[in-house]
């Protein structure tokens, strides 16, 4: 008996997203459903873990298991889930605040562990959920937040550079305005065995209307993807941050507990017996 293949619409839940019309995250949602359909992953075998923010609302909109956790901790939840359940395909989603500010430490160690996870960061260089504060990727001179009226005055966080230095084995950048590239990158990211860092430029039209310009500023990554971390570092440092495509992918040791039963509880209890 043949089971009909699932279509991308089968991966979309009935819940209506809260996102503003024109939000870049709609394209990410669509790309996720397309990628999962393309890979033919049974819906119950996929888990989508997120933190807090507009992009972190994603799990409710995807017809798969989901965990909407607290701010910045999605990678930790995902690590525990994957460690306990290697059989699942675990995707992690969040924004630039969730991932690079409060979640920064977890990002570093997630890259270092290089567990087989796919991390999608929807970067709109602003905190949208809390109505328009600067994020770590916001330019230093952006003055539109009351919290930082003179602009953040601090240099931007460099997501790709830091992910690479921390040990991520797959680094790519996508853009909501190029949905077909996004779907392709997602498929590659999920297929890659290791920690896949997918940096998605995903404009927030409500609090960053200037990001409409991104459509003109993005461009394909000039080089072919490299599997050499030193070369990747050079390319990323030289990059203007608007290059799209796969930048770096390498087969690096993946951390995953692989334990087999070799003893019993009775053995441990015997250790205490006098």
């Amino acid at each position, binding site marked *: 008996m043949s089971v009909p293949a699932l279509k991308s619409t089968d991966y979309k839940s009935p819940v209506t997203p809260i996102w503003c019309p024109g939000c870049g995250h709609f394209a990410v949602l669509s790309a996720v459903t397309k990628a999962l359909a393309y890979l033919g992953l049974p819906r*119950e075998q996929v888990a989508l873990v997120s933190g807090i923010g507009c992009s972190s609302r994603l799990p409710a909109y995807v017809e798969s298991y*989901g*965990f909407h956790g*607290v701010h910045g901790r999605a990678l930790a939840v995902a690590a525990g889930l994957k*460690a*306990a359940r290697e059989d699942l395909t675990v995707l992690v989603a969040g924004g630039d605040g969730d991932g690079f500010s409060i979640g920064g430490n977890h990002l570093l160690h997630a890259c270092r562990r290089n567990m087989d996870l796919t991390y999608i960061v929807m970067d709109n260089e602003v905190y949208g959920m809390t109505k328009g504060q600067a994020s770590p990727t916001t330019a230093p001179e952006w003055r539109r937040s009351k919290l930082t009226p003179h602009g953040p005055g601090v240099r931007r966080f460099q997501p790709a550079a830091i992910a690479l230095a921390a040990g991520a084995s797959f680094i790519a950048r996508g853009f909501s305005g190029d949905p077909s590239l996004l779907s392709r990158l997602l498929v590659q990211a999920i297929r890659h065995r290791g920690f896949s860092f997918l940096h998605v430029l995903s404009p927030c039209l409500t609090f960053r209307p200037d990001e409409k310009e991104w459509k003109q500023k993005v461009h394909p990554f000039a080089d072919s993807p490299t599997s050499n971390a030193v070369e990747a570092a050079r390319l990323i440092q030289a990059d203007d941050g608007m290059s799209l495509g796969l930048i770096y992918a390498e087969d690096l040791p993946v951390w995953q507990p692989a334990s*087999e039963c070799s*003893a019993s509880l009775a053995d441990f209890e015997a250790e*205490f017996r006098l």
Partner: protein
Amino acid sequence: MVSESARERPPTLSVAITGSGGSGAVTAGLILLEAVGQAGFYGLMTRSAGPQIRGGESAAMVRFSPRPVESMGDRFDLLVGLDWRSVGRFASEIPLDSRSEILADPAAGEVPDVLLAAGAAVRRAPFKSIAGVVPEGRVSMAALGALGAVLGLPLDALEAGARRVLAPRQASVVESAVGCIRHAYTVQPEAGRASLQPPSAPRDLWNISGNEAAGLGALRAGVRFVAAYPITPATEMLEWLAPRLEQLGGCLLQAEDELASINMVIGASFGGVPALTATSGPGLALMVEGLGLAVASETPVVVVDVMRVGPSTGIPTKSEQSDLNIALYGIHGDAPHLVLAPLSVGDCVFTTQWAAGLAEHLQATAIVLSDQSLGQSRAVTTPPAEPTLALSRRRRQAPDTAFVRYALTADGISPMAVPGEAGGIYAADGLEHNEAGVPSSLAADHQRQLAKRRRKLEGFDYGADWAEMRGDGPLCIITWGSSAGAVLEAAERMMAAGRSVRVIALRLLAPLNVEALAAALARTETLWVVEVNEGAQLFHYLHAHQAIPAGARSLARAGPLPLRPGEVLSALAGAS
């Protein structure tokens, strides 16, 4: 060697072995504990150390008896000084009196005045020269041999103890230790005035620490995932668990911090694997946010807090019961959860196992309040019992109608699907949600989910294990966790002197079984609440629930010194 008359025979013996770093005091203590166990006695061992990583001064304290030992008592019968450097640090922890003896080597110098002040007699034994006779002989092992003879312990029990404790070391170390013990034992002229008749019938006994016991309880309950960050005084529990989890097909993930630990535990539990972490006060403070998420998403988790002296960094190596407040009230919002506290070293097995079972069954968050005095003490004790209730996660019955993850059931427990199950798809959420798990800001959804999460805990029948109760009478003492030992011993002494007293040692602190407590206090005329924290945290909690009468008395004082039975007796006597 047997003591002379029943009248003189003490029911327990307490021994302290002190020395500077590297002197072997703790090893000697461990061997002594194992030896008393081999001889058929029950025992308890605690230790004290200076703050240095290596080489700090240390003391091992061992108490043993033909009957179960539940506290370290009020005084020490014998102090063995391997050397006298920095002993002043321990003077307040090793109360001596005129009935005590100090066993010392004249070659180590004069016994410090601070130890002689209470009138203890000094018995001399030449540890150093005895050790010199045996190749690579150590002063600590010679002292142990002499000590064993003074205590009237069988030599073969001492030897068995040494072989077991020193088993990981090289054979030459074991043999020289055994040689020293034997030689010192045989040259020791006579048993001291403090010695005990070993029990005649062999017993089935365990030698276990509180941290190991909590680890075992977790494994017994089916915990197969631990994510944790090292912290004093919980680290040994994690170190005990790590290889054994792996051997059972599970794993321990060392996380980058406690924020990650609790979230990893949540992730694994969401994935269907019972999960736990262990920490101390400062780590629990970091985890509180995660606990709220576990409560809101109804994901089973267990956190064992091996309490230290607080607040903040406090005194990491010493014990206090001052995390009750954060355990009860730390989570923001209305977040009902379980708080339990083991009553003894051995009870760490039962209580942790029970907590983990309850967490799974009720899809709840359980905090187990152990402490340094339990975690880092060892006991020779009866093998721990298992909880009688069958506790397990309620799973959805497939095939079924559309699965509703947070369905409003009568008992508040909703069937839970686990990733991988077809037809069980849902998104867990820290956001308030409706029955289907879809985020909701509606008042009715919040009220219904709050009521459900409360109902599932408060409506559950926890059975008789919520407290240990002993005795009866108009005088009652309520206590909790590690204070139970000293309180029970105080009560035993009162009852031996013909005074009736009831002790209620709480093991389940939240939810509080107000009705059962009221029934237990029905005929109480004088009530004391005893705990080791300065803020009288349990006392205030019981009052908040109107569970104790207005005239109830409080004995609440801070750590780091252990609670002693004599303190309890003094408080009760002083007040009447």
